[in-house]
């Protein structure tokens, strides 16, 4: 999790679009304080696609919300810096943050039926994201909305504009959400499992189109998912999250071909496509620990067969040529890096 910031200043390399440093979010509940996001660090360069991978409950969605400043009560972002093009978002007031949301940073959610307001027309919902940030008249805004629909591949856009969300299929609704996200040409889009609720074929289409649109526009993308195969096909870099922490990060080639953290290794091995026909499916023993009762030191140690006593203390971050991981007993480097406990 090395910061590119210092090296950027030093060697005149382009500045990262987003740099997250030590981000921590807490929830104060009656049963105690839970920390679903603990000391998260990563950065995303312009035009880069980063995958944020983890099981449900790993804190990946909340990381996205924390960056956007959309964490609801009783959650609070308690520390860390979120540097967007060098400016710390946490230091801005709510009006400034609102100005950035929807314009410079956009977000797409998982369930398109729930994210579009069922009683408002599509054109209203697209146009308002433009008029909230720029002084445009209705005509212009509507024209922009129309071309946004065309851009995401929706046929007969004029009819569609006057329609309501429930008249569309899931895939089309998600495209509309993408259109909304893209319309102001943001520098960063955070996608929170946007294809999970869709058919596999639609999923592939959307992935392809997102990738194309982002490459063309130079937009950075953070793709939050639990599905490694999506990351493999789509992303440039990947961060693996477990119990609120980033346990491994690096380029997709590095992490997927040679995973160093036992959890990453286990995740990869679990993918059904890796199985020989007839052989039993692999799994990682145990289940995600409750956020209120995390094991001390490495959160994964109770499920790891490589764990030892030293794992009761927080593991250090090791950096090997751009690939970082937090482990005392990383997977050894050899070509057949497959098995885990």
């Amino acid at each position, binding site marked *: 999790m090395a910061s590119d910031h210092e090296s950027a200043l030093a060697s005149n390399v382009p500045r990262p679009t987003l740099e997250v440093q030590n981000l921590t979010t807490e929830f104060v509940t009656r049963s105690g304080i839970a920390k679903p996001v603990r000391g998260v660090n990563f950065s995303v360069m312009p035009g880069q696609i980063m995958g944020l991978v983890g099981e449900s409950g790993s804190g990946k969605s909340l990381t996205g919300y924390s960056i*956007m400043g*959309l964490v*609801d009560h009783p959650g609070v972002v308690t520390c860390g810096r979120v540097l967007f093009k060098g400016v710390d978002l946490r230091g801005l007031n709510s009006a400034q943050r*609102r*100005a*950035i*949301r*929807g*314009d410079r940073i*956009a*977000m797409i*959610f998982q*369930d398109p039926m*729930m*994210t*579009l*307001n*069922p*009683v*408002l027309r599509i054109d209203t919902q697209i146009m*308002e*994201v433009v008029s*909230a*940030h720029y002084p445009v008249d209705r005509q212009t805004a509507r024209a922009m909305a129309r071309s946004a629909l065309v851009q995401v591949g929706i046929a007969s856009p004029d009819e569609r504009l006057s329609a*309501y969300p*429930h*008249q569309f299929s899931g895939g089309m609704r998600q495209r509309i*959400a993408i259109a*909304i996200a893209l319309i102001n040409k943001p520098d960063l889009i955070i996608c929170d499992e946007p294809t999970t609720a869709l058919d596999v074929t639609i999923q592939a289409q959307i992935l392809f189109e997102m990738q194309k649109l982002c490459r063309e526009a130079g937009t950075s993308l953070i793709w939050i998912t639990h599905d490694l195969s999506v990351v493999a096909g789509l992303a440039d870099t990947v961060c693996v999250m477990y119990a609120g922490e980033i346990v491994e990060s690096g380029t997709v080639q590095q992490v997927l071909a040679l995973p160093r953290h036992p959890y990453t290794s286990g995740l990869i091995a679990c993918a059904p496509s890796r199985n020989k026909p007839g052989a039993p499916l692999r799994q990682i023993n145990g289940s995600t620990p409750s956020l209120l009762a995390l094991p001390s030191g490495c959160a994964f140690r109770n499920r790891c067969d490589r764990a030892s006593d030293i794992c009761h203390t927080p593991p250090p971050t090791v950096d090997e040529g751009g690939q970082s991981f937090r482990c005392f007993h990383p997977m050894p480097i050899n070509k057949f890096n497959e098995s885990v406990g």
Partner: protein
Amino acid sequence: MVARVTVFILRRLIQSVFILLLTSVLVFIAIYAIGDPIDVLISPEADQLERIRIAATFGLDQPLWRQYLLFAENALQGDLGRSFAFSTPAIPLILERMPATLELAVAAMLLAIGLGIPLGLWVGLRPQSIVGKIIMSVSILGFSLPTFWVGLILILVFAVQLGWLPASGRGATQLLFGVPVSFLTWDGLRHLLLPALNLALFNIALVIRLTRAGTQEALLQDYVRFARAKGLTTSRIVGVHVLKNILIPIITVIALQFGSIIAFAIVTESVFAWPGMGKLIIDSIRVLDRPVIVAYLMLIVAVFITINLVVDIIYSFVDPRVRLSGGRV
């Protein structure tokens, strides 16, 4: 799609007629079968001959089912009998007083929506604030306190102590499309305010609660989060996104409450001496002037059924999910 909606309307229409019929039978039986209607009209010392004569005049000597058919036949022609006490036809008697009651009821409904929704929105957005808590406590009072009691206090405070508003009666009226209404004059409005407020109190509390619940629920929805992610201002999120979602159920409830409002006007009209149907019905009940009671009940039921029907139909047009799927949600 047009066919589906038409079928829907037709079905509801037929249902409504059926309910009206059923109710008329029930009402008729209840009123005419219990007790002896003749007792209203004659002194206790009247002899048998007198009784028979009166019975024949008012058609009370026929078997019950005959009476009902007579009643139904007349009803379809718009004649629901003659008042025993006033010796004039029942329906015109009631219709004469209706504008006053309607005026009161509509004013109450408007107050309920106009005050209830903004207050409810406020509480929904800031549930922990002091103002919010005060509003909620007052709304609880609005539910539980008897209307007549609140009317009393309103009179005590605003009419007796402060002298700002009149204590009773209806103000000066003007004709609007041939119907006397009082809200067009300043004096009329002054007289209308307290009774309308009194009548509206229960519904204001109801709307506040509904709006609050609806707002709180709406704020948890994904589309609100998405709207915030778009960078929309809070006033737009609440004023457009949230409001449109909660408005329809709330207005539906209030519209359905309209019949109740008219019925409860009986109490308010008594407290404020408002010359509407309410006072008439109280007096009629006291002396058991059955035609008037029956006519009033039938009218109220008809109002109820019509409102339900209209609300259903409008709902099916307004809620886009319902409209475009052709009828039933």
